């Protein structure tokens, strides 16, 4: 199948994958570090294991980013 991930077409040998499986293949170190948008809709994290993607789906992997001013725990 061909998926559009972050604006780029990517060909994968699989016909279908769950979001969790796709994150594994794309080597996302931890599913907690991203929000996933599938065809314009943000998915809930609990949907990662059930939602299935196939040919033509458009995904955005939106990574949490902190940055700026750090703060110590005290």
């Amino acid at each position, binding site marked *: 199948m061909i998926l559009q991930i*972050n*604006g780029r077409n990517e060909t994968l040998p699989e016909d279908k994958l769950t979001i969790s499986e796709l994150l594994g293949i794309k080597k996302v*170190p*931890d*599913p*907690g*570090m991203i*929000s996933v*948008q599938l065809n*314009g*809709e*943000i998915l*809930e*994290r609990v949907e990662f294991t059930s939602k299935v993607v196939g040919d033509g789906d458009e995904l*955005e992997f*939106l*990574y*949490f*980013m*902190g*940055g*700026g*001013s*750090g*703060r*110590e*725990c005290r």
Partner: protein
Amino acid sequence: MDFSNDQIERYSRHILLKDVGGIGQQKLLESRVLVIGAGGLGSPIATYLAAAGVGTIGIVDADVVDLSNLQRQILHHTADVGVMKVESARATIESLNPDVKVELHPYLIKAANIRDIIRDYDFILEGTDNFPTKFLVNDACILEDKAFSQGGILRFKGQTMTHVPGSASYRCVYRQPPPPGSVPTCSEAGVLGAIAGILGTIQAAEAIKYITGAGELLTNRILTFDALTMEFRTIPVKKTDWALPESRGGKSPENLVEYEQAYCDLETARAERKAAGFVS
């Protein structure tokens, strides 16, 4: 309008702009903007807002300047190490532009104080390194009907979005803070100093656009960039129930959530996950 000759000269490049002009410059001089975090993002934000003649800039930060900050936090200079960041920020801003009044908030943002702090400002910019504060700023701005800019950076990447009342919020993209330990911070993973400049100046431009009414804001979109490829993308984001508070039929929390303790627990959890190989 009542500009001095010095002001006409100082702001001449703004006044020349059709979308700013004398009227826009007057609005900037009368505006009140709050910068939460005087760090990597807060530095370019506050510097450009000061240069632009934003009349009152509030700075929130409870930290002192550390030597490791100076690679990107351009509000602070070598002689400022050990000085409160808000004090250092005030000195830099006042030397840049005496038109600017600086208000200092040298304490941590909490659920208990944030609404009172943001209430007095026209626009809020968030540039903190921790997710409890990012969510707190988002939630409080929604309750107070405030426009704000949210920014994040890591390694060579940055992302930002602007919210105005009724547009998509940070929670429309990120429902809740990441699980403890799942996201590395800049202090763990590093960040290119110039990335803070790129992202922070985008946020400053949004604040200036909001105040002057110029152009279209970065609302209902999230901008991401990767400096390694210099690709910039804006991704449309749909407004959801999270853009409105519970009292107005939405899901954004009415009682502000204090994620503070969870964040501190997170430091321990993160170290454990790192040791177990979950985080690169």
